[in-house]
């Protein structure tokens, strides 16, 4: 009787401890996931910032080129218009 109580007690304690360790493990995992997500977000934000900077430069370059090649653009558009008239 005494022995069986001891065995049951031991089993209950073992299960409780294991479950405790398992929750610790889960917590640790989720913390790592959070860390990774935060770092991914940071990384993506940096990339976005780079892209925004790049976009500003590209927009500036496009604007300058467009101004510089104004006549050539008009000429191109005129031929495009002729093409449309023929094909439509």
């Amino acid at each position, binding site marked *: 009787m005494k022995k069986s109580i001891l065995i049951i007690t031991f089993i*209950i304690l073992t299960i409780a401890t294991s479950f405790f360790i398992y929750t610790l493990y889960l*917590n640790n995992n989720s913390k790592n*996931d959070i860390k990774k997500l935060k770092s991914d977000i940071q990384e993506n934000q940096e990339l*976005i910032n780079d892209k925004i900077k790049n976009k500003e430069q590209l927009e500036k370059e496009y604007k300058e080129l467009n101004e510089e*090649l104004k006549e050539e653009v008009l000429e*191109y558009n*005129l031929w495009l218009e002729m*093409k449309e008239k*023929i094909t439509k």
Partner: protein
Amino acid sequence: MARNERKNNKVIIVIILFFAIISILAYFIYENIEHYKNNQNEIIKLTTTLNEKIEEKNTSNTENNELLEKINHLKNIEKETTELKEEVFNLAKNLEQDIINKKSTKKIAYLTFDDGPYYLTHKFLDVLEQYNVKATFFTIGSDKKKCYDNRSKECYPLYKKIVDSGHTIANHTYSHAIWGSLYKSTNNFINQVKKQENLIKEQTGVTTNILRFPGGSSTAGKLKNSIINELRKNNYGWVDWTSQNGDGGSISSKEQALKTFKNSINENIEVVLFHDYNNITLSMLPDAIKHLENKGYILLPLFYESVMINK
């Protein structure tokens, strides 16, 4: 008795210890589960944020790529315009065939200007630019070194201006001497063609192979076939005209020129003859363009492959 009591006390202590341990474990397990739940919520929020960031990054990427494409298009615009021009000529060639075979109801008009460049040519170019029309200039070379005009003392730069404005530059012989030596022999004629070809090449870098006989091909008389044979050997094509405003002869007013011009428009493919030395033609040009556009004509510059070019 006392032993039994001690034994019972031990059991009670063990039970208390057991419950104490279990309670502590349960408390920490509960705490861990609560943390875990919170973490999971944070993970969901962070995942959403990350997805948004990825989406934002992709949008930025697409926008930047579109801008890069536009920049590359601008950097290569001259090459792309040349390619587009070739494409337009190919499409126009097919359209001409469809018009001839009555597969299309569209109409094409080729505006052509003879005997320039003249001191008025830049004004013709301005009107054409204003109406977004490309035309063909059949140029001659003699007496063109001086253009006594307020804007330009020289006519030669006008050859380049014609080409730079996207018009077709073509050959009308160097001398245009209809009543002189031009039609005296095939050799004379071909020499004048070559001389003008060289002048155009020298002034614009363009080698033309489209010709209009001064006075029209019938002016060549008996020499016509022989000249055409020589032109073929030199890969030249030639074209007369199907409509005109009479500005090569004697027209006295804009109204008369416009009336003559309108009456001469009957075909689905028209080659219109004008002269860019004529002030009356200059004044009627906007109305002529509007008239053709209202009648549904697509205005194009001539190109060698056109069915209107005799080869």
